[in-house]
Structure formats: structure tokens, C-alpha cells
């Protein structure tokens, strides 16, 4: 680097560092702090971590909230439910998104941009409104049921809303672009001559795909899967609007603890466990992506 100097370099790294520390690390630490407190009726609705009296400073940290999470199987089931829903959504997004990304990457130059634009078009409307729109489509007297009855395919409305199906549909619908875009990035930079070399060496199209395309786009698969899996695990809006009584997702449990029960410490403990549980797959994927990039 030329002419930036030591101070300039420190500023360059320091500003985003400070930003992250102030708006990401500090809030996280506050959440951790609250998770170690007891719930009380008052403002704020939790006990202070440190108090001072005549004998000096006193620390009031308790792990009771974490013990509660471990002892009540509601939380474990909610975590596992989120995990299962997010994993299924990731797999479905991959299965749907890969062919779409493949087709866009394979399209002629002039057609690529409009196709990519269509993928991103939903972002122009609020996420919340798009999820609400699904209610209108899936309701017992919604668009889809009306249509199916209208053409005589069914006589009574199908239970499409407020169940596992509608939650999964909502997750896949909402997060599909996050899968398509990194996959497209990976596929569009794939060296065409590698595919030709594979065909030249006797590989049929499916073998070319399995042996060359799939392994070489694995960074895109990993990135897309992370972008779907991680937000889907903590998803609250979709299970709340489209889910039913049997939908158990951790984001919804967290919301209920926080707003309905007004139990900030338990809600914080749920969040802390969630962040800790997510950090593991993120770090693993990061490691993998780094190794691929080095190769």
C-alpha cells in the first residue's frame, strides 16, 4: 500500500472495528448480561447485575435461566423444530435454486440481467407484506383453494394455512433469492473449458455435472446454504403469520417470552444459546470457504 501510512491504516481498520464493537458486540454483551439476571416486575424488568452497598460491590449472576432452558423440554423442542425447519428449507432452496441459478448463468449475456432482476424483484416489496400475501393465497377461502374448487379438482378447501406446510413454503419462498444469488455467482465464473474438457474425456452431461460442476460450485452452495439456514433458524415472522398451533420455532418462543411473558432474562438466555449454537456452523463454513479460496 502506498501513502496511507500507519495512522491511516489504523483508521481504516479501526472505524469498522469500532462500529462492530459499538453496535454488535456491545448489544450482545447486554443480552448476555440480562440473561444472567432474575426477572422482576418493574422497569427494567430484571435485576441489576452489580449492586453496591456498604460492604462494597456485589455480583448477582445466576444461571437459573439457562437451567430453565435445559429443564423445560419446550425450549429443546423449539430449538430442534427450528433446526429441522431451517434445514429442510435450506435443502429445498438448494434443490429449487440450483437449476434456476444454472439456467441464469447459462443464459445469453443480454438475458442474464433481466433474469437476475426478477430474482431480486421481491425485495422491492416489504418482507412482511409478502408473507401476509401468502395468507390471502393459502386461506381456506383464499385464492388457491377458490381456484382448485373452481376448476373442480377438489370440493372442500385444503388445509394449506397455519400448519407445517405453510411455514416451510414461507421459508422457502422468502429465502430462495439468498440461495440463488451466491449459486449464480459461483456458476457464472465457472470456466467453460473445464466442462468441455470433461466432455472431451468421455464424461456424459450428468457425469460432468457430478464430477466438475458440483464440486467447483461448492463454495456457492456453502454460502447460499448459510444465507438461508441462519436467518431461517431465528425466523419469527413466518411461523407467527403462517404457522399453526403445532409450529414450534425458537424465534416465536423468544418473542413470546419477551413480549407476552415479559421475561427478559429467559428471552435473553434463549437468544444467547441460539447465537452460540449458530456460531458453530458459521465458523465451520467460514473455514471451509477460506480453504476453497486458497486452493
Amino acid at each position, binding site marked *: 500500500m502506498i501513502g496511507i501510512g500507519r495512522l491511516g491504516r489504523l483508521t481504516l481498520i479501526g472505524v469498522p472495528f469500532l462500529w462492530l464493537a459499538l453496535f454488535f458486540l456491545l448489544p450482545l454483551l447486554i443480552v448476555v448480561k440480562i440473561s444472567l439476571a432474575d426477572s422482576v416486575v418493574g422497569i427494567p424488568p430484571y435485576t441489576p447485575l452489580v449492586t453496591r452497598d456498604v460492604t462494597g460491590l456485589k455480583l448477582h449472576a445466576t444461571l437459573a435461566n439457562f437451567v430453565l432452558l435445559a429443564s423445560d423440554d419446550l425450549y429443546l423442542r423449539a430449538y430442534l423444530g427450528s433446526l429441522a425447519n431451517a434445514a429442510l428449507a435450506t435443502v429445498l432452496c438448494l434443490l429449487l435454486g440450483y437449476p434456476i441459478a444454472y439456467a441464469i448463468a447459462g443464459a445469453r449475456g443480454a438475458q442474464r440481467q433481466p433474469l437476475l432482476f426478477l430474482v431480486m424483484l421481491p425485495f422491492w416489496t416489504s418482507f412482511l407484506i409478502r408473507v401476509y400475501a401468502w395468507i390471502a393465497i393459502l386461506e381456506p377461502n383464499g385464492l388457491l383453494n377458490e381456484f382448485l374448487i373452481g376448476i373442480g379438482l377438489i370440493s372442500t378447501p385444503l388445509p394449506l394455512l397455519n400448519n407445517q406446510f405453510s411455514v416451510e413454503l414461507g421459508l422457502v419462498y422468502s429465502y430462495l433469492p439468498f440461495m440463488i444469488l451466491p449459486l449464480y455467482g459461483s456458476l457464472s465464473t465457472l470456466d467453460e473449458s473445464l466442462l*468441455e474438457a470433461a466432455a472431451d474425456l*468421455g464424461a456424459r452431461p450428468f457425469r460432468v455435472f457430478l464430477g466438475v460442476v458440483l464440486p467447483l460450485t461448492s463454495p456457492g452452495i456453502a454460502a447460499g446454504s448459510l444465507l438461508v439456514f441462519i436467518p431461517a433458524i431465528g425466523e419469527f415472522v413466518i411461523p407467527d403469520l403462517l404457522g399453526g398451533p403445532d409450529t414450534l420455532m425458537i424465534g416465536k418462543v423468544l418473542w413470546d417470552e419477551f413480549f407476552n411473558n415479559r421475561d427478559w432474562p429467559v428471552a435473553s438466555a434463549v437468544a444467547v444459546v441460539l447465537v452460540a449454537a449458530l456460531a458453530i456452523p458459521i465458523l465451520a463454513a467460514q473455514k471451509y470457504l477460506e480453504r476453497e479460496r486458497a*486452493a
Partner: protein
Amino acid sequence: MVVLEIVGASKHFGATAAVDEVSLSVERGALFALLGPSGCGKTTLLRMIAGFESPEKGRIVIDGVDVTALPPYARPVNMMFQSYALFPHMDVAGNIAFGLRQEGMGRRRIAGRVDEMLALVQMTGYGHRRPHELSGGQRQRVALGRALAKMPKLLLLDEPLAALDRKLRAETRLELIGIQERVGITFLVVTHDQEEALSMASRVAVMKEGRLVQIGSPSEIYERPSSRFVADFVGEVNLLEGELAAGFNCLALAVAGFEKPIPLPPGMNLTHGTAAALAVRPEKLVLSRVLPNGFAIAATVSSVSYLGGGSIVHLVTRQGRALKAYLPGTAAVRFTRGDALWAAWSREDTTVLTE
């Protein structure tokens, strides 16, 4: 025995003909070069043989089988790509084994063949390296080993030496010839480098604007070019444009500004008045300070370029035409800029070109 036969193959990209009615046959065991400037259609022709482009008309026959409609994976040819196209996610051994695995060859036989190929291209011990850990020359060898592993009927090489630096290119050229002789597989090399084509190939086909303009041995192409284009593209040449006329005892070329017509080699079957060009290679020119016997052109030295093994003397004739003479060794030290000389050549060393 003919291993490759192309009959009337054509292919257009938009309005331009990339390959235009090309017919060609290649003998088994030959090292055949397709030579031409960039954009002449030689790569398209090569890709047609490999199956990546399909001709609009014409046939491609490999070893007696019409493969025109076959996809690349079903053709008994392999290609060495200009970029080498090594699979970055596989090691060297995996790259070489890729084609063999598609055939369903047994594990042990694959391992044996991979070792054989590594030895052939002098890469023994590199089987577990990834392509990005290799130098350009090493990648080139692996690409060659991979393309030869399946023992194809025909090996297509797309600018095999273009990505190497000059010194390595000369060595690798010799190695390629050696390997070709050892394995006995027919090589079809596409190149834009005339020196490469002449020094490697047993036969050379010159292409221009999608058409084959001349096929012959390297010396035929160099000594007896069939057109101005070939004469000019393959090696250095002096071209003098004129009109056929009667000379002293023979056919001659009347060049505007020259008082005497230039005598042409005997046995020409051309009518007077035809527009033609005389081609004479720089190394055929003889320079002297005194007027030699026979035909000579008066000229002045404009510059001398020292090349190491010899020199190029640039001359300007009294009529203002530029001529080049190649003098081997240190023969050119006698001449400096401004010297008045006579340039002569024997008429047997010239070629008359009407195309």
C-alpha cells in the same frame, strides 16, 4: 491410412464464415499442423473435430466412422486445451485418471496407466499435487498426459505452446515431437506461430478466412508458397508486384519503375500481361558492392538489424522499394547504413504468385 477425413465442412457465426468448405485428410501417425492468423477458423475447425461445434454441412470421419452427429464424449479423440483446462479440485493423478474413470476402467489398471502417463510426460512424483501448485510448463505436461491417457485415435492440440515463455517453448516443442513419436498417436496441432508449425509438423495446412489455402510439407509451404498470403504469413519474404512480360530468353516480371524486367524461373505456364508477384526469401538475396553477372538491383542500406546468428539488412532500391536480406553469421558487418550495393538472387530461388 487416413485417420481423419473432413469433407466440405462449413460453419458460420452470424454472417461470417468461420469454416468455409474445408476438406482435409490426415494420415495416421502424422504430426499435422493447422496454421493461420487469429480468426482464420483453425480453432473452430479443431472444435468441430472434437465435437464442440457442429458443422452446418459436411462430414467428419475419424478412423472410418462418421462422427459428425456424435457428441464430444462419444468421439475417439481427445483435446489439449490452450488454457490446459485442468480440474482445479483434483490432483494431477485425478486429472489424468478422469477420462479413464469414465470408461469404467478398473482401479488398479487406472493407477498403472496414470503412472505410465506421469512417466511419459516426466511428472513422476507429482501425482498428488494440485494444478495451482504447478508451474506453467508442468501444467502443460499434465494436460498432455491427461489427453493421452485414453490413447485416442487422434490428439487435438490447441496452441499447445502459446502459454509458455520463449525458452521453454523451444524445449517443449522438441519434447512434444519426441512423445508423439513414442506413442505413435496422430497429433493435430493448431497454431498461429509459423515457426512452430514448420519445425514440428510433418504436414502443414495454412488457413485464411475459413478456407484452406495450401497443404504441404513444411518445406513445400516455405519454398513453394501458392499465394501471396502464404508467402507473407510463413516466414519473411520480399514481394515485388508486376506484370508478366517477355524477358531475355525467358518469362520475366515487369515491375513499375524498374528499367529491366526481372527474370523468372523456367517452366512457367503463364500468359503475358498477367498480374503477378515475385516472392524471394531474404536469405536468398546476395549482396555485393560490385555489379554481379546477370540480374541485379541497385539499392542502398537503410539499416542493419543484428539477430545474433545472423543479421537482417534492410535495403531501399533506387525506385524506393524496401527489400530485406538475411546474412548468416557476421557477413553483415561489412555493411553500414548508406552503403550502395547490388542485390541479386538466382531466379530458381524465386516463386511467382498470381493469387
